[in-house]
């Protein structure tokens, strides 16, 4: 397996390098290499960011996929062989990589103003701009069920997910401490606003694990984002946590009877970062400015149900590319979905991830 991975990454790096050189040779301006998560998500970025950007500036974009674009950055920067200009990473990774000096700082004041004239620093949702990163979307971890499999009352709260008496059947959960501990506490009655306060104490961790204990025997653990819709479709689980966009795509483009429960959703950002020593820093910055403009962010929501990180993009969000699904209510940030939503605390996880992951792994094995 390791060999396959090594080969794959070698081929990938080689093709990126080749692609970059080719673009450099034939064009006046250097191509920008953008690394993202693949699948429907990369497609949404290609349609909303890459194509219009190339059209406008003539600068080519090389789109590269990774199962987590944060992974190669540390290795590339430490080896002094950076091939990626822009990477799309999760919040805690953006902060951590930035703190470890692996990213180029990004001056938020250089970003364009919103379409409604508001300053970029006011236009972005609080927390969407950091020293080294600019958020493009808001996504969320939610739980979903197959409505054709549940007769009678439908689940509506986080507590229902943990109630195997009322809603029998297996549960899908991501095999990680993150998200599960928070959801367990919310199901146990902790309001979203107090979750991290409670989780910071030993008693809080115990409480969360005790709640997870109640369904431990019924859990199917997943690791990759593509797994939960599959588990639901196979009838392998009655409910599963998942990334909201994956469930939306399965429901709308594949006509699966999947329903999302927004109660207790955990919001997170995806952010653009520039690895330290990126070969085309200037192009990378131009791309980020373009891609995180009001219009581009609104355009992206046409392709996947992740919310734009700018407030001014909200009113511009329209229909899905099938031409009939209204995207507004599908956004994690839609008012109706925000009733009991938790914003993922990167600071908490940057501090406690190592420790809580060990606790979680030990709990899994006990």
């Amino acid at each position, binding site marked *: 397996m390791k060999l396959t991975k090594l080969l794959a990454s070698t081929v990938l790096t080689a093709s990126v390098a080749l692609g970059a050189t080719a673009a450099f040779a034939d064009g006046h301006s250097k191509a920008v290499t953008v690394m993202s998560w693949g699948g429907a998500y990369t497609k949404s970025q290609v349609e909303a960011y890459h194509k219009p950007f190339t059209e406008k500036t003539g600068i080519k974009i090389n789109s590269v996929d990774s199962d987590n674009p944060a*992974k190669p950055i540390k290795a590339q920067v430490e080896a002094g062989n950076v091939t990626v200009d822009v990477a799309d990473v999760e919040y805690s990774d953006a902060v951590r990589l930035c*703190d470890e000096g692996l990213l180029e700082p990004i001056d938020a004041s250089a970003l364009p103003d919103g379409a409604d004239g508001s300053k970029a620093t006011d236009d972005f949702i609080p927390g969407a701009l950091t020293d080294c990163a600019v958020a493009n979307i808001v996504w969320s971890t939610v739980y979903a069920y197959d409505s054709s499999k549940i007769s009678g009352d439908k689940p509506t709260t986080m507590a229902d997910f943990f109630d195997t008496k009322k809603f029998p059947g297996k549960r899908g959960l991501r095999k990680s401490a993150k998200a599960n501990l928070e959801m367990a506490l919310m199901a146990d009655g902790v309001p979203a606003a107090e979750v991290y306060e409670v989780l910071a104490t030993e008693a809080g961790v115990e409480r969360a694990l005790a709640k997870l204990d109640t369904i431990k025997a019924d859990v199917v653990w997943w*690791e990759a984002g593509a797994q939960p819709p599959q588990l639901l479709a196979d009838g392998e689980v009655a409910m599963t946590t998942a990334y909201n966009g994956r469930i939306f795509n399965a429901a709308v483009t594949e006509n699966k009877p999947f329903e999302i429960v927004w109660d207790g959703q955990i919001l997170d950002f995806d952010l653009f970062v520039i690895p330290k020593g990126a070969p085309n820093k200037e192009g990378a910055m131009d791309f980020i400015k373009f891609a995180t403009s009001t219009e581009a962010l609104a355009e992206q929501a046409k392709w996947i149900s992740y919310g734009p990180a700018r407030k001014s993009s909200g009113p511009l969000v329209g229909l899905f590319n099938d031409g009939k699904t209204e995207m507004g209510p599908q956004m994690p940030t839609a008012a109706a979905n925000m009733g009991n939503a938790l914003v993922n605390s990167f600071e908490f996880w940057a501090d406690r991830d190592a420790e809580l992951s060990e606790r979680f792994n030990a709990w899994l094995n006990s």
Partner: protein
Amino acid sequence: MADTTAADNSQYKAAALAALAPQTGKGPLTTADGTPLKAALGKAQRQARIRAFILVAPLLAFILITFIAPIGSMLFRSVNNDSFSANAPALSQWFDQNPGIVGVPEDEAAWAALAADLRIAKKERTAGQMGTRINYDLPGSRSLFTKTGRRADKLEAPFKEAFEKVDKRWVDPDLWGVMRRGSSPNTASFYYSAVDLTQQPDGSVVAVDEKRAVYKDIFVRTLILSALIAGLCFLLGFPVAHMLATVPTRYANLLLILVLLPFWTSLLVRTTSWIVLLQSQGVVNDALDALGFFTLMQKLALFDPMQQAGIIGSTGRLEMMFNQAGTIIAMVHILLPFMILPLFSVMKTIPPSYVRAARSLGASQPRAFWKVYFPQTIPGIGAGLLLVFILAVGYYITPALVGGAKGTLISNLIAFHIEKSFNWSLAAALSAILLVIVLIMYWLYDRIIGIDNMKLG
């Protein structure tokens, strides 16, 4: 090996020739141009050796650069982590100069040094690196460094009070104990972590809280599961290999392709196929249900005991996926060719006349098999077992996909620390321990069976 032997032989020949020379009575033998034969021979051999080395050099360089050097640098990381000491030079120097001071220092110079380091860290954006190293030993302290780092320019003398005002945790004696240890890049603490031990701030080594202990259990599980998988591969592979070796060649070739076909199929495809087959709503369970297996079990009053034993899950189906059973089934299937192929190649060379001779001398069929046939297959068995075991110990993607809670192996945790927690030093320490275990297995194998007996094909 062969090259050295050949070279040695020719040296003997040269020596023999030289020894012969005086006996002929005509002085030392010379070549046509008058140089002594011995020198000419030596020169020719030297040239041959250099030519051979030049031919091997590209491969050697390739292995050195792509294999030995990365492994070496990873192993070095397991005992060396300078992310604190390199980013806090002034404080590290203070620690060196004041070896006796334990706990929170009263010496203002220490606090001034820390403030100076943090100021540089702010400029260089390295406060996170400093904090991350300390966070390994004292969870929660990473944010202390990033938070204070952001305000480093505002810190003014008296520094101790200034730090205390930013955050009370700065006067925690444990923090200073951990920082003192971090001030030296050389550390054994990652090896302690890798075997569920921890170093107290006072320097003593104790077991971690059992709620956090995880690595030792998973090491043991990895070894047990790998041994089990190797054993199962042997039990399943031996008859197959025997059949391959004994049926007529045209059938054997066809059967061999059947063995190799899955071998050439993508690992991911095979793993996910097993999920489709064995999950609780999968093909096998559906078939069993349609055949009335579960009703039969209920009639025989076996259903409830099976459910209690965890063989049948809460959905009333057999639990064969997302647990240890899933890991074992999928890995046995994937690794089976590594057992069958060495066995087959050894069995192919065993003349059938030996067993026939034993039979004709009056041995029963089982006796002929045990006494004559089986011992000759041991080199193949040894090679297969060792190969499957070593591959299984490092297996990664299959247990990650089908292992569920209790089917994960140590390589999954190594991957976790490389990719998610970025704690490369701990990942390196875990890998080093795994490497040592594999070397010990290899050594044991050599002692018990003998590595020269191994036949890979």
